[in-house]
């Protein structure tokens, strides 16, 4: 007698599920970049504790993965907000539009520096972006001179630049799926790569070739993909004083007793230098809001207000305690106005 009852209960449970799923969502769903994740989570937690709304759910999917989920459509089963450690691309905007996500609000939250660091046991290094390019690119200009590219021959830092120590080139960094890696390649390697006149000229004549040269990291073991976990990189640097690591500024900030950031282009990676825009390897962080969801999912407007409040993203806000580099006053004002007016995203013609 009991068994049919259990079966009926199970069947009932299974049948009732879709109706539950279609009911309204009472929490904000956020996806996106693992770099923005530590900042977004702090705001979410504050928001959840100080308002009557539920704490937003935040998934760390990477910038690309987040935008993909975000652009899948409008409706409660799709995320409301996606974080990105780079700007949304034209192709992604098009994809969003195709799925009905036409109204997007763009908010820049601040900056993040990418540091090249080593253990405190070793000396602090001073390098240029050109050194980084020569040490890490797959193909570099022939050291003998001339305008041809050869397979990277450099094995030791001293060969790259006589002022650097005579140790093996060994750099631990994030894998290609990471937004940090994208930004590092774009800002550091391409920045150094452009210093060679003939490569810079390639940008006009052979854009694809230029990108390949400037954006391809060597694969002969000098650059070690150390996974997405930046804590692991810090630990490995401690164990190996000769190795360098590439990671976000917040990890340097939290581990100042263990690692030191290298000076790049004569600028040390400090909070002030990144905030003033002097440090060359820094990038803006963003999030994107689906405007169609504002009003349908409770709390989005209030969440935006919390994020854009001075106590969060201001120069003394709690986000700076977590390592976010705040925007200058004028920029903060602009994005706050955008949030208030819900200005639609416009990509400049690039």
């Amino acid at each position, binding site marked *: 007698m009991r068994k049919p009852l259990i079966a009926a209960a*199970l069947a009932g449970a299974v049948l009732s*599920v*879709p109706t*539950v*799923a*279609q009911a309204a*969502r009472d*929490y904000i*769903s956020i996806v996106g970049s*693992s770099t923005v*994740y*530590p900042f*977004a*989570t*702090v705001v*979410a*937690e504050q928001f*959840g*504790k*100080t308002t*009557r709304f*539920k*704490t937003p*759910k*935040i*998934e*760390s999917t990477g910038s690309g993965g987040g935008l993909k989920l975000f652009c899948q459509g409008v409706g409660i*089963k799709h995320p409301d907000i996606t974080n990105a450690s780079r700007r949304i691309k034209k192709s992604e905007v098009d994809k969003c539009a195709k799925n009905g996500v036409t109204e997007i609000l763009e908010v820049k939250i601040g900056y993040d520096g990418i540091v090249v660091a080593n253990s*405190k046991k070793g000396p602090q290094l001073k390098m240029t972006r050109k050194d980084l390019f020569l040490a890490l690119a797959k193909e570099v200009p022939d050291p003998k001179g001339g305008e041809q590219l050869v397979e990277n021959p450099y094995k030791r830092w001293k060969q790259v630049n006589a002022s650097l120590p005579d140790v093996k080139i060994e750099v631990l960094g994030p894998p290609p799926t990471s937004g940090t890696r994208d930004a590092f390649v774009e800002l550091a390697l391409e920045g150094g790569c452009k210093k060679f006149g003939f490569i810079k000229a390639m940008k006009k004549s052979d854009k694809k070739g230029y990108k390949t040269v400037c954006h391809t990291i060597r694969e002969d073991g000098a650059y070690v993909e150390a996974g*997405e*976990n*930046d*804590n692991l990189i810090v630990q490995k640097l401690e164990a190996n004083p000769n190795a360098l690591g590439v990671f976000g500024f*917040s*990890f340097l*900030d*939290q*581990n*100042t*007793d263990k690692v030191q950031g290298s000076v790049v282009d004569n600028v040390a990676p400090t909070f002030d230098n990144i905030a003033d825009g002097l440090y060359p390897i820094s990038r803006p962080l963003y999030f994107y809001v689906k405007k169609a969801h504002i009003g349908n999912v409770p709390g989005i407007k209030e969440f935006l207000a919390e994020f854009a409040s001075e106590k969060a993203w201001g120069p*003394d806000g*709690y986000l700076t*305690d*977590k*390592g976010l580099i705040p925007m200058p006053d004028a920029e903060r004002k602009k994005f706050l106005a955008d949030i208030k007016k819900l200005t639609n995203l416009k990509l400049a013609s690039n």
Partner: protein
Amino acid sequence: MTDGKLITGAELAASGSWHGSPQTQRRLRKRQAAEKRFRAYGLVAILMGVSFVALLFFDIVAKGWTAFMQTHIQLEVTYDPEVLGIADSGDTQALSRANYTGMVKAAMRKTFPNVSGRRAKRALYGTVSSGAGFVLRERMMANPDLLGSTEKLWLPADDDIDMLLKGHIRRDAPESDRRVSDQQIAWVEQLEQSGQIRKQFNTTFFTAGDSREPELAGIRGATTGSFYTLLVTLILSFPLAVAAAIYLEEFAPKNRWTDIIEVNINNLAAVPSIVFGLLGLAVFINFFGLPRSAPLVGGLVLTLMTLPTIIIASRAALKSVPPSIREAALGMGASKTQMITHHVLPLAMPGMLTGTIIGMAQALGETAPLLMIGMVAFIVDVPGGPLEPATVLPVQIFLWADSPERAFVERTSAAIMVLLGFLILMNALAVVLRRRFERRW
């Protein structure tokens, strides 16, 4: 021997004995040495295994045990209506919105009256956890009569101060090399002298959900999520697996089709778990429209993953019931259903349960398939049911391991200790079940 005559002992002794001939003795020594080596290999293998496990446990416990203690600072807090901005203690709205952080700041100023300057005050407020205000808020909400009164309370310290007291931040390091300033250390030393700072058992770790502040973070959300996920897995996978095993063992004809099914079940047991996650994303979320990050979907995915394990274990358990039991039951006039439900199933049940528990233990430790269905997420609220967003213990470990704050290192290890505790408990239960109830024939 060829002439059929037995060799007597005396003759043997005279010939120097079989064992005595130099070649035999050499061969014998060789064989005995080989025997010893063979045993030694096994012993070395076990020792290696045990030492790896010991190393793992030692590392985790050494890193993690401090997380069960949390530094607290004693402060004399005044529920000052002016600071809080509450006019009437009956107004719950005002109570929930009041400025409790201001109260903590006022108490800090009272303890250290000669601190002045914006920067110094900021550093001073930074020694108490930013969650201290929430502690006061909870007390106030539970008892609005506190308004206007003063009490001495132990409030959690900031994670950096906690790390300092636990020795993870060295006091003798140069000031630029640590996250705690010389001034903050001086304050801490002053508190130490007056006995207003101490380490006490970290209850928050077991009662709170996730947080980005290490001193406020806990595993309750993750364990609740794990519980709902495993509940769904158990409810679905156990009956399905037992039914499948019974059909395959007792009813299915032996032909090519059942062979194919058997091969496929064994194959499924070896499929990488991430594949099940992808399947779950495509089928349960995209097609059926179930919510992302829900334990229900996690349970469904883990059901797919554990089904083969339980089916294989259940079939082995059914096979070990001797045919004589079945024949006797049938001979007494029982129907096949009666034979199975009254005789075979009870005898096979301990084996089936063992398999189920091992499958559940496997599911408890799984993260990869949950990545795809959105259970790797920052979720603060403790889930209230299988449809609310949740995460699970191993995912919590993964997320903490990736957090920049130093204090999360010990919390990661502590969470691993809790997970290992659950796993040991489940596996021990499986061993006990087998010992107590399994019958050998």
